[in-house]
């Protein structure tokens, strides 16, 4: 658990596990952890610790979240391409059968909820479901394995669950939000403006009130969508880390901590699937609302 040669407290351990590997631009004149001062014009580098991340501000990317999420996206694409190439009228077996089951499940789900005419919705839902599920699945890997291996390889921070990073979940939610706006305008045209201004009070004097209420309602959708996934995964990860910290509390804690870890992991299998499913269903529902013309 602790790095060799220095004493680490529980909160150091937790903070270390909750810090992203950040690559960003340090401002001019900033004094780094080893005493160097950043040269004129700033410097693009990996951050060491919270103060350097704070100094980077907006000019920073979370390399680990980006890498893991794109990697998992590639896993999804290759796996489903593998299945699509082999799909035939014969009885499928094993993995192929499993993938056909997922596709069919999503297809039924979309048919049940979405009543408009749009070829994008089913593939979008499939992508969201499997991708979010894979990102959440990283939560089930024991919390110390990858960060410690990476530490061994010289990388200081590594947070392997992309959906515990609000940037990733809010990014996806904003993507869904733009699709909602796009289809609202495309399907309803001017009707979208009328929906925003003439609902729920159908009178010109109430236009500001209506506009305010509808815009708040519209903006709340992507916000709650992204934060729900983030909050669930963050809380789950937090509890995993706390149980892992129990292992350091003494020999007597080994067995209870192992049992707790196992129990929470089994419960978490339900949570990660459910959250991926909810993200997908809400996306379909929101896009379905964007297609409904009154």
């Amino acid at each position, binding site marked *: 658990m602790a790095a060799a040669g220095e004493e680490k407290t529980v909160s150091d351990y*937790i903070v270390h596990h909750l810090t992203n590997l950040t690559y960003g631009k340090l401002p001019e004149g900033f004094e780094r952890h080893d005493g160097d001062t950043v040269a004129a014009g700033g410097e693009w580098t990996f951050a060491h610790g919270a103060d350097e991340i704070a100094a980077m501000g907006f000019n920073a990317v979370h390399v680990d979240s980006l890498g893991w999420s794109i990697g998992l996206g590639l896993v999804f694409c290759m796996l489903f391409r593998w299945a699509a190439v082999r799909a035939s009228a014969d009885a499928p077996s094993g993995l192929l059968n499993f993938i056909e089951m997922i596709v069919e499940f999503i297809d039924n789900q979309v048919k049940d909820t979405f009543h408009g005419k749009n070829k994008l919705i089913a593939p979008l839902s499939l992508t969201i479901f499997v991708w979010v599920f894979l990102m959440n699945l990283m939560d089930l890997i024991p919390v110390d394995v990858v960060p410690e291996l990476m530490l061994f390889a010289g990388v200081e921070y590594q947070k392997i669950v992309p959906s515990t990073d609000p940037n990733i979940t809010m990014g996806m939610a904003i993507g869904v939000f733009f699709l909602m706006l796009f289809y609202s305008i495309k399907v309803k045209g001017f009707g979208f403006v009328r929906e925003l201004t003439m609902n729920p009070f159908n009178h010109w004097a109430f236009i500001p009130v209506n506009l305010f209420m509808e815009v708040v309602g519209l903006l709340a959708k992507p916000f709650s969508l992204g934060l729900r996934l983030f909050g669930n995964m963050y809380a789950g990860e937090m509890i995993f880390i706390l149980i892992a910290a129990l292992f350091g509390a003494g020999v007597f804690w080994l067995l209870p901590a192992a049992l707790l870890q196992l129990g929470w992991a089994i419960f978490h299998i339900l949570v990660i699937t459910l959250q991926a499913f909810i993200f997908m269903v809400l996306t379909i529902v929101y896009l379905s609302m964007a297609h409904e013309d009154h």
Partner: protein
Amino acid sequence: MEMIYIAAAIMMGLGGMGAAIGVGILGGKLIEGSARQPELASRLQGTFFLGAGLVDAIPIIGVGIAMYLIFVVAG
């Protein structure tokens, strides 16, 4: 600093209480609905899990933030 523990306790307690009432009502209605129309039971179950997941999110988020407060902010 001690106030943080009280804040965390309230956060977990009230969040859990509300969600427990919500899931209780939800489960009761599920049983009621599937007793009336057993052929709809599987579809109702899907919707039930969706609702339970939506309700579940709030206390879990509360527990996560409370744990963060207890062990990182106060600890």
